[in-house]
């Protein structure tokens, strides 16, 4: 198992490297000159050259990249052009806020989606399957920001039982785990964010379970006299690797934060930060956020991979 872990880790390293190359190139891929935003439009050629040298833009690209990578390795992503604060602080702050939501949305969405899909997959074609699969499709196809607004109108504006926006009392922009009453601020955004992953995971689980149910070995299990519960346990274990793959992706999306949902609930997370950085052409923030999110994706994939091969030994060999 440790061997396997090291082998998978070796795959992850070049991927992470590739990701960093892409992030670095963002500055050059993005239309326009990154210096335009900070320099006055009438800046003299001398000033431009000076600023270029100050930011290191005068060096050849590979050198620039290596220098950048060296700084990134020690957690220095530079300064936000918009706020002048270190990018690390911006990014970690936003990621922290988003992960507060994910911390609740992930267990809720994953367990609900998995249970719905498992029940539907065990009774394909029955009414319960139709109801559950129908709800899953609805969850995926309704725009979640619209759903969020509906929830706000219902629970915040009409019933006034839950706050509409923000992270805590007095417009706090830091979620306080120790203040129990602040939990109310989580309810609506977490429900809104859970809709899509519930739908996607339910559909994947249903398909996987229904497929496994049709495999020959299920007849063997029944022929052994196992109870239906025991048979379903076998089936779920067989279906799990496929489901985990999708769960990993959904986890990545949740960590990326939803620009629209975070805007609706004024929740300053990574989606929020990304949209701000794009609007302000804040390239260092963009680079830092994207690199962090990409690394989270890579790490999640690694974890999913390991869990899959732990469950299904046939995956271990490839």
């Amino acid at each position, binding site marked *: 198992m440790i061997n396997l872990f090291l082998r998978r880790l070796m795959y992850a390293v070049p991927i992470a490297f590739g990701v960093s190359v892409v992030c670095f190139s963002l500055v050059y891929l993005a239309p326009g000159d990154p210096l335009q935003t900070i320099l006055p439009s009438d800046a003299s050629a001398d000033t431009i050259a000076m600023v270029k040298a100050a930011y290191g833009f005068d060096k050849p690209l590979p050198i620039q990249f290596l220098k950048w990578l060296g700084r990134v390795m020690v957690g220095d992503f530079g300064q936000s052009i918009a706020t002048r604060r270190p990018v690390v602080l911006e990014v970690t702050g936003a990621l922290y806020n988003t992960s507060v939501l994910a911390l609740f949305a992930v267990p809720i969405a994953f367990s609900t989606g998995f249970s719905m899909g498992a029940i539907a997959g065990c009774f394909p074609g029955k009414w319960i399957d139709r109801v559950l699969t129908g709800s899953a499709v609805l969850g995926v196809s309704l725009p979640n920001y619209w759903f969020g607004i509906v929830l706000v109108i219902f629970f915040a504006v009409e019933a006034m039982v839950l706050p509409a926006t923000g992270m805590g009392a007095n417009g706090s922009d830091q979620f306080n785990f120790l203040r129990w009453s602040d939990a109310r601020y989580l309810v609506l955004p977490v429900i809104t964010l859970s809709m899509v992953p519930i739908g996607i995971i339910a559909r994947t689980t249903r398909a996987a379970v229904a497929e496994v149910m049709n*495999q*020959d*070995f299920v*007849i*063997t*299990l*029944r*022929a*052994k*006299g*196992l*109870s*239906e519960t*025991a048979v379903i346990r*076998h089936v779920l*274990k*067989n279906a799990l690797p496929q489901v985990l793959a999708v769960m990993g992706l959904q986890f990545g999306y949740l960590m990326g934060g939803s620009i629209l949902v975070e805007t609706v609930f004024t929740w300053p997370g990574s989606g929020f930060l990304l949209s701000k950085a794009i609007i302000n052409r804040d390239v260092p923030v963009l680079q830092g956020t994207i690199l962090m999110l990409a690394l989270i994706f890579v790490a999640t994939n690694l974890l999913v991979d390991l869990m899959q091969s732990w*469950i*299904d*030994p*046939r995956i271990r060999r490839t």
Partner: protein
Amino acid sequence: MSSPLVEVQDLNVRFVTRESTAHAVNGVTFSVQPGEVLCILGESGSGKSVTLRALMRLLPANKARISGSIKVDGQDVLALDAAGLSRLRGGLVSMIFQEPMTALDPVYTIGDQIVETIRRHKGGTKAAARARALELLELVKIPSAAQRLDNYPHELSGGLRQRAMIAMALSCGPRLLLADEPTTALDATVQIQVLILLRKLQADLGMGTIFVTHDLGVASEIADRIAVMYAGRIIEEGPVADILANPLHPYTRGLMASTVHGQSRDRDIDAIPGSPPDLRQLPPGCAFAPRCAQASGDCLTAPPEPRYPAPGRMARCVQVSAKTPEFA
């Protein structure tokens, strides 16, 4: 004669879908004595597997319509409730399947799959069940059995997998073993080893056995009696030596003519021209008549009734001299 272990009376299985109804098994009657080996012989699609699965009620409940009567060890299988069925399956009756790769759960070890069967029927601790599983693997002659317990199915060769399958089937001391072409998927040499093993275990443990095959050679090795199926009917039945020496039904004769020694087993139906009937639209008469050289007008009106020309022998063909059943 002791009371039979299996008594099947007028078994019918239809598969009903919105578009059509397939008559997979049509009025099958047979019995198996304790310790006896009955081979069901027939070409692909003749209803052998469906008959076997009906004995354990393993057919999909939403599609399969079963009628008739099935008694195993005196129990009315078609009337069993879920608890009774689960006791029967794997306890009183076990099944071995054709494809040991797909018939075992790929994500559980061989040992776990045997242990779970033992504990389901006999209870006891995990350790005790594991010790028993090890004994079973040794019984079916799996080399280095202790390590094999922790292997997953894909880590074993086809022959070993099938042995593990057999070990699992034997784990709770069944009185009836159902084997659905257990050697067809194996290499020729492995096939013979597994066959010899099965025959020996069957005799040692005194299990009644129903062994499905489309290979006359295999049937002659292992069977006490043979039942030949065609289009969901048993068209001939009798002691193995008698049938081999003197087949009564034209279809059985055709089967034998095509398996004369040395011929490729895959082409075994070539000697009989034509192909089996569509089970969704069976002809009103003898289902074999369209392919039969000796068919006459009588054959086309109604399926021939069983005739019993000699003790223990039965054939459904108008040409067999119609004696009164000596014993029915």
